[in-house]
């Protein structure tokens, strides 16, 4: 779960602020209908993703593969089958028009932007830090924050249990069954022990947490304290400049003629 990486200034931005800023940017992106503007903003975010997450280039390129695929597939469907006036090419069902091409690219870039924002966030934020910050800045109830953190611990344990159940099924001759009935059986045989195991574990952890005097009061102290710093100003400023400069450039020096 935890991928080691170098710490960059993005890691030091307040996690709650980062989360809010990125959500706002996603919403803003929904209202951008100008392709040039969209491309500028996306390039600005890709710059952050490629250069400032602190992960190796190899790792980043590997993570980008599914998103390139999303970009190509979303834009292609719109490009090939969208409606438009200025016809460029037609062959059977496929008709590429100028309008469909532009709209396709717009949708593709929007998908790419969302992906880049999400990845940048998750690559530079430890879940524990996010929840600590949410408790301190957004006043999230400790009850919810700590249950999420405890749940994250359960994921690797569940994966291990899944492997064990698979081996156990093999021993019982489970693989021999065929057909829909056996698929149904398999689903049941995997999910019931997995779920019952997790419920039991979650209950045990909850009891253990209360045994350590956990209560839902807000006057607790924090091992990690989060405030705001110059990095946060820089982070906000980066996006404001990106939105403004992107808009200016898209009018003065459009990358594509529209």
């Amino acid at each position, binding site marked *: 779960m935890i991928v080691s990486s170098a710490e960059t200034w993005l890691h030091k931005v307040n996690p709650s602020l980062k989360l809010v800023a990125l959500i706002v940017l996603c919403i803003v992106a929904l209202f951008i209908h100008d392709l040039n503007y969209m491309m500028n903003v996306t390039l600005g975010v890709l710059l952050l993703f490629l250069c400032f997450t602190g992960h190796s280039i190899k790792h980043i390129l590997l993570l980008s593969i599914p998103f390139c695929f999303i970009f190509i597939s979303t834009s292609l469907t719109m490009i090939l089958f969208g409606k438009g006036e200025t016809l460029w090419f037609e062959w059977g069902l496929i008709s590429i028009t100028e309008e469909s091409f532009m709209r396709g690219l717009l949708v593709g870039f929007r998908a790419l932007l969302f992906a880049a924002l999400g990845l940048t966030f998750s690559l530079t934020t430890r879940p524990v830090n996010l929840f600590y910050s949410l408790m301190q800045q957004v006043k999230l109830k400790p009850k919810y924050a700590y249950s999420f953190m405890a749940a994250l*611990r359960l994921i690797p344990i569940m994966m291990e249990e899944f492997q064990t159940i698979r081996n*156990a099924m093999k021993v019982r001759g489970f693989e021999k069954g065929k057909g829909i009935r056996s698929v149904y059986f398999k689903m049941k045989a995997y999910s019931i022990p997995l779920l*019952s195991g997790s419920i039991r574990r979650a209950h*045990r952890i909850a009891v253990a947490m*209360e*045994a350590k005097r956990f209560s839902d009061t807000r*006057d*607790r*102290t924090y091992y990690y*304290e989060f405030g705001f710093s110059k990095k946060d100003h820089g982070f906000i400023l980066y996006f404001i400049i990106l939105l403004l400069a992107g808009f200016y450039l898209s009018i003065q020096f459009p990358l594509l003629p529209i």
Partner: protein
Amino acid sequence: MERIVHVEKLRMKFPGDESLLFKDLSVSFDRGEKVLLLGPSGCGKSTLLQVLSGLIPNSIEVPMKAEELKWPTSWGYVFQDPDSQFCMPFADEEIAFVLENLSVPKQEMKERIQHHLRQVGLNLKTIHTSIDTLSGGMKQRLAIASVLALEPEVIFLDEPTAMLDPEGTKEIWDLLKGIGRDKTVIIVEHKIDHVLEFIDRIVLFNDDGQIIADGPKDTILSLYKNEMKEHGIWFPGVWDEYIHDNKPIREHQSSDGVPLMQVQGFSGFRKKEEKIKVEELQVHSGEWIVIRGENGAGKSTLLHALMQFIKTNGTYELMGTPIKRVKNLTDHMTFVFQNPEFQFVANSVYEEIAYSLRIDKRTQQEIGERVHSLLEVFRLEAHQDKHPFQLSMGQKRRLSVAASIVIEKKIILLDEPTFGQDSKNTFALLEWFEEYRRRGITVIMVTHDDHISNNFATRIWTVKDGDVISDEKVSTQSGFVETKVLSF
């Protein structure tokens, strides 16, 4: 003496149960006492521990009533499962979680965390160490460290070493002896060898959750031996008595002819890393092989490799056929897992045992006969309509063994089959394996229990650092021990 924990006329009942778990139970503990609660599994000792600490009813809602109930003002609780008592991913964060709950200022935290880790002898390279990388024993140390962070007057221990090997068990008890010296300690534990020197009082329970004896440990141990034996409690000397009464005999079957299993230059891989290596081993029918070694040495991995759960290399033949060409490995070998719950596939105990027979398309009559005979042998007739998950831990274990061997296989592999079982169930299982062995079936088991290797095994493999380093034959009849050292 000042009473620090006290309950008077406790009555409680789990929803859905027919009878009361406790009926008018009274018990009290003085400051500084070290007390062991002892009783058959399922008698409610752990539940009582939770009532005494206030976890019931404050955290776990169970209907209960008591005329008088005094909880300690400050207490800590160590649970048995090392994996499900932490809520944070790193060691320092886990102790910090306790300190946060107590509103300790942030500036003092680092120092307190280091202090508590030192107290339990947990020397980590950095306090920010991932809990997943710790061994079971280290996890329990961390759990004790976070309990110490609470600065408790009373420490409750609910089988803190149930999931640890003998080495880890001893270390944890040595640690607790030092830490608990000036505290009140109330313990529930089945493996009592190491606990006895530490405690001064024993409270003995019967099956119905009643206290049958309460007093100084020596008195209880000498006066109530028969009750303890009857209830399957592991009192000191239970093995000696069993051997005295039963005298298990291990004679060798002839080991000529084609070996049942043969491996040479064999290794098993997990995530492309070689985790277990065997130079050469041959297994014949009617052997009882115990695999020994420290936690993490690769004992379970060896079983997994033999069962082909993981990728393997080298020569591995089953009755002269290379393993890759053996069509249905599970027709010849079976495997019993450490956690029996993972193995259950059916909705009732009866169907669970019948499952493999149905896949094998046996006749209805044959299925009925076979299942009933197994239900009887494993003392599960009364529960045949229950869902497997409703059984007690000991019953689940017996069911998982019964279901695995319903179609007789030539080899049975078992991963810690007696783990967490009381003495009665342990002996029943062992006797049953012994009977199978005499019929020519080969039993290969991983166990930490030296008594099994000393009294039942005909052969012992020792695994160290992913290597099978020795293979010795043992026999009680002729008294000879032949050791074959494989490698160093």
